[in-house]
């Protein structure tokens, strides 16, 4: 074993003993407690690198697409995040985001801008063109999120296009109907 390796080993041991409470330490010496070895999952490391780059909670969610809850818990454990089995996936994403100090504000702020711009359109066609070209509205989840921000009641089972049309009808269509009835008043 090289000098550096020996030094790293002792540092690891010192750090580990330092992290123990007096009680845990006594328990270990007396043989009541035991040390468990766990190898870091290579896959977790890759995912963690990807998750780290997320800017919002929803991006964290996207970067965990396809993962089972137990995989997410495993990532949490690697990151020493206090994850519990009873936590929902949503809570786990929030915990991961909090660990990396990722806030959800940025994306919502951007979507709020989309919401405000949408409300200014006077024709459904213009609104549709605007929404279909939005980078923030690529997935169905993104569109549903916008619908929630606008308080538009949608059926999540509907297609992306149907949900977009529903948003446009509720936001622009309703105003046009109101104007048509009120006429010049």
């Amino acid at each position, binding site marked *: 074993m090289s000098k550096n390796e020996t030094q790293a080993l002792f540092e690891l041991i010192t750090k580990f003993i330092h992290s123990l409470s007096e009680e845990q330490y006594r328990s270990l010496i007396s043989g009541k407690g035991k040390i468990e070895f766990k190898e870091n999952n290579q896959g977790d490391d890759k995912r963690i690198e990807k998750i780290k780059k997320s800017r919002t909670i929803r991006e964290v969610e996207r970067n965990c697409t396809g993962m089972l809850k137990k995989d997410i818990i495993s990532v949490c454990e690697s990151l020493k995040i206090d994850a519990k089995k009873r936590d929902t996936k949503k809570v786990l994403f929030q915990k991961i985001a909090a660990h990396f100090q990722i806030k959800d504000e940025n994306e919502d702020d951007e979507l709020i801008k989309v919401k405000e711009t949408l*409300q200014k359109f006077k024709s459904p066609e213009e609104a549709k063109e605007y929404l279909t070209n939005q980078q923030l509205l690529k997935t169905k989840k993104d569109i549903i999120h916008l619908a929630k921000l606008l*308080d*538009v*009641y949608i059926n999540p089972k509907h297609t992306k296009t149907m949900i977009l049309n529903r948003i446009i009808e*509720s*936001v622009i269509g*309703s*105003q046009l109907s109101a104007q048509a*009835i009120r006429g010049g*008043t």
Partner: protein
Amino acid sequence: MNYKGGVGKTTLSANVAAEMAYRGLEVLLIDLDPQANLTLSFVSIDDWKALDRQERTIKHWYDQYLDYNHDISLKELIITPTRLNEKLAQSRSSGRLDLICSHLELVEVDMELSSKLGGHTDRAIRNNYVNVLSRLRFKLEEIKEDYDMIIVDCPPNFNLITQNAIVSSDYYLVPARTDYLSTLGINTLLKHVDTLKKKYNQHLHETNHRHMPPISPQMLGIVFTMVSYHKGVPISAQREYIAQVKRSRLPFFNSYLRENKSLFASAPETGIPVILHQGNIQQKKIKWEIRALVDEVLHTMKAKVRS
């Protein structure tokens, strides 16, 4: 006011008036709905029959005008409902709630009023139009100084009786359910009120009533009624229509009235609106909402008067 029936006009009128009286205001309630639900929320059937015999309902008042062209004061019709005012006294409130009762046959009065609108010349038609539409306005002028607030419960239509109410009002509230047709209905109502205002003012200017100022009834706001809650917020299907109204820039109140059939359904029988009932947590929630709404109504009125 709202064309739609079953949106909570009477419940809203009764509770807002009772809360205002509880706060020490002198309030007059006028029931213009032939269904007489507001009347029967404060007066027992027997008492109402007695008033009918004495010809002290709004229908008899219109009859006097239609039959004899008599110009009777509304004072003759005013009653002070006993159960409610006793409750106010028990609560040590200095306020009072008076009532002008409706009549089931008021629906026929409307048709007869229409027959008064005609005339042989343009001038006669204009004069008749102003006279018929101003019945309530002219007579309320005589008694309005006696009250801090006069609240009129309108029928669910836009007939001449409703138009009488609009012409005589400074402000109107629109209780609305949060659904597609109710939301559209608000716009229809606004259009009709605006048309009425323009036509009435035009005719008023052209007749011998020029001393009367033109009318300008303003919508104080939309009150969302029968709201169902889930986890402390209105259910999403209703939130959509609330959001649509808010986006349309129409005035609305932030205090909503929740759906509660068991409480609102039985209250009229007691002669005392929900707002003055002692109650459980559900009743308390409703009372908070009504109080918050009355706060908003009074605040909005004051702001409008100042501006």
